[in-house]
């Protein structure tokens, strides 16, 4: 497996006070936007909490044209290296707020850095959906995980639960089965969204036990995860309803694979309109409801419908071209 070897320029001295364009997010959309922006010679800064985007957690990406069967981390590396090659500054920080000014925007990071920008591209992507149960936050890193590929080897010869019914849950269960003593796959329905081939493979795996229909009510433990409190459910007219029947199981860890939600808190705080699911509404030119703020990738309503690296990259390119045209029109 290849690793994310990209070294971001994290030296504070390198960061300027003013940029033409600040891109928030360093996944395929953000990197692609930076590459295009630099071709237009826009001074560009990427501010990102994490580098590479969620794609770096994918074992293999096999649908990005020209790069067949590439590990997700390697693809992430290539995007970052490409952006850096064209003199994009990249810093690993979280953006706290974007404030509209007369001449553009004031970007404030969690670390209280302030950067001026004439235009913004939000390429903040998505994050893992949480169970929102007691113990989940407390035991993060002590048995609770959202990334099989990241943490599976730490559960060698242990008993772990995987929660979810989609492809990610099913591939994580199989990956964990290579390391763990036993894997328990918990899902709130008796049927699965995962591809039939994945379901077949999991059912044939002697190390994996399927436990349905249950939801997780609580994650318990002392210093680390020890038990899960589950509640049996039933499906009535497509709705999942808890039955009140409780059950406790002993596990050393729990992998939560119940889907993704948009990283759009910053967008909302900045006055950018989002749809009812929280995704940023963009037009064909990747413009948001706020003049000067653009968006690209899986955080947008259009991108999230397909969740494809190639689409995120394309949207990043469109956003950068739109920024260039926007800045030119303001000259």
């Amino acid at each position, binding site marked *: *497996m290849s*690793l*994310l*070897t*990209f*070294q*971001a320029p*994290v*030296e504070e001295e390198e960061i300027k006070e003013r940029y033409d364009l600040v891109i928030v997010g360093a996944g395929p959309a953000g990197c692609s936007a930076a590459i295009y922006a630099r071709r237009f010679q826009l001074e560009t800064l990427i501010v*990102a*909490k*994490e*580098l*590479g985007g969620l794609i*770096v*957690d994918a074992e293999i990406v096999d649908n990005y044209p020209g790069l067949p069967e590439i590990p997700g*981390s390697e693809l992430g590396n290539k995007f970052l290296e490409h952006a850096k090659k064209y003199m994009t500054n990249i*810093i*690993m*920080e*979280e953006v706290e707020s974007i404030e509209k000014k007369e001449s553009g925007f004031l970007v404030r*990071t*969690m*670390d209280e850095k302030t950067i001026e920008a004439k235009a913004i591209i939000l390429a903040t992507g998505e994050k893992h959906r949480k169970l929102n149960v007691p113990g989940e936050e407390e035991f*993060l*890193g*002590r*048995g*609770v*995980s959202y*990334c099989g*590929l*990241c*943490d599976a*080897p*730490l*559960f060698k010869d242990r008993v772990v639960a995987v929660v979810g019914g989609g492809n990610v849950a099913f591939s994580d269960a199989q990956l964990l089965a290579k390391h763990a003593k036993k894997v328990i796959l918990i899902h709130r329905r008796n049927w699965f969204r995962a591809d039939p081939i994945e379901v077949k493979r999991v059912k044939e795996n002697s190390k994996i036990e399927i436990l349905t229909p249950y939801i997780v009510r609580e994650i318990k433990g002392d*210093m*680390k*995860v020890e038990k899960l409190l589950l509640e049996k459910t039933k499906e009535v007219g497509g709705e999942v309803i808890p039955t009140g029947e409780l059950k406790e199981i002993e596990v*050393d*860890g729990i992998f939560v694979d119940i889907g993704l939600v948009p990283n759009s808190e910053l967008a909302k705080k900045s006055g950018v309109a989002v749809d009812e699911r929280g995704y940023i509404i963009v037009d064909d030119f990747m413009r948001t409801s706020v003049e000067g703020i653009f968006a690209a990738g899986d955080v947008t309503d259009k991108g999230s419908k397909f969740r494809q690296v190639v689409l995120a990259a394309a949207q990043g390119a469109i956003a950068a071209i739109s920024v260039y045209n926007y800045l030119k029109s303001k000259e």
Partner: protein
Amino acid sequence: MDEEDRELEKILQRKMKELLHATQRKTTPHPLSEGKAVKLTSENFDKVINNSDMPVLVDFWAEWCMPCHMMSPVVEALAKKYAGKAIVAKLNVDESPDIAQRYYIMGIPTFIIFKNGKPVEKIVGAVGRGPLEKALRKHLTT
């Protein structure tokens, strides 16, 4: 130059020497805080975290962990910036599973800040530079 002036000159020179010496002493780098992340193992872990007046930031990582590699330049940058003020160290959880187990490391990267041998702060995940630096700054002695 009369006798008094010469005496004064001597005193000044001595003072200067003392001052120079004092600043040199102050800037003499701590062997474990010279601007590079220190490698910890099962053998030296307790010695390093117990015998330091400075806070010790430990990055629990592994070769196969991508988010760990993502954070590694951040860790090195902090080691450089806080040379002489904090010990920044890395522990490979595959090479030292005993230490990792002692602190219930079941997700990496995990960062723990130790003071006088005791963990005072724990941060899980590739959180970027901001939160990590903020936590470290909170525990600096000066």
